[in-house]
């Protein structure tokens, strides 16, 4: 069998492309259930807030349940052949997302917030930009989802009036759910 340098270069290119696509698929498959979960949390919490604004603990309770469910999902991911180092990486990923949540809460302690609308929008924008950043590393679908979340948050902030929570619940929460389902498709 004779292989020229050109053929070898082409073969390595095919290998890189196939491996990159497989890695992208693997990342999407891991991220998708978390997106769907948090889309549901977002939708339920915002719908409750829209129709029963007096329930001030809706989001803290929803976020707490979301964190617990995320841990359950993380523990349920396939473990065949996963090394201790890879397991530790999974926990680091989880901890990183938790740090973002804590960061936003900390931010509100030093930046004056005058309305729940601003709180909502900050969460939407921070996670939108994070998804965009994650997308730069894992694949273009995450980047598109991030851009969608940013745009939807700005549209809601400036164009939606009294039904803002309902809008964010249905549109942004729905975007995460649809995004998660989209990531599961190859």
């Amino acid at each position, binding site marked *: *069998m*004779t*292989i*020229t*340098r050109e053929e*070898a*270069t082409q*073969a*390595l290119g*095919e*290998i*890189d*492309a*196939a*491996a*990159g*696509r*497989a*890695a992208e*698929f*693997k990342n999407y498959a891991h991220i998708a259930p978390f997106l769907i979960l948090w889309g549901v949390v977002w939708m339920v919490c915002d719908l409750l807030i829209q129709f029963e604004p007096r329930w001030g603990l809706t989001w803290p309770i929803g976020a707490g349940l979301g964190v617990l469910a995320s841990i359950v999902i993380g523990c349920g991911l*396939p473990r*065949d*052949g*996963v*090394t201790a180092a*890879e397991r530790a990486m999974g926990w680091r990923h989880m901890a990183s997302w938790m740090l973002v949540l804590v960061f936003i809460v900390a931010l509100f302690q030093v930046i004056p917030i005058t309305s729940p609308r601003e709180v909502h929008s900050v969460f939407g924008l921070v996670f939108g930009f994070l998804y965009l950043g994650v997308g730069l590393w894992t694949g273009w679908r995450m980047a598109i989802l991030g851009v969608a979340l940013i745009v939807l948050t700005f549209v809601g902030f400036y164009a939606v009036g009294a039904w803002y929570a309902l809008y964010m619940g249905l549109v942004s929460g729905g975007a995460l759910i649809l995004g998660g389902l989209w990531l599961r498709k*190859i």
Partner: protein
Amino acid sequence: MGPDEIIHQSLRLKIMATLNALPRSEKLEFPKLKALLKATDGNLGAHISTLENAGYIAVEKDFADRKPRTRVSLTASGKHAFEGHVAYLRELIDGGGAEG
């Protein structure tokens, strides 16, 4: 080390590269592999058989939700052969190895 004639065929190379990129011993369902590689059923099935006969991949058939399911994964010898072939290709490009 020389080239691996079984692996070097274009679609088989992509199958091996795809399975090698997954976590160790992770099994990939046939329809997902087909979609990832944009291959047809018949073509992919034939090349999977070739790789299975060489001992490079393992094919597992079972039922999930009462539907037949075929999953493929890379074997230890398949991983070794793939890495050897990639090393050969790199050496060839770097000018350190002989063609053929």
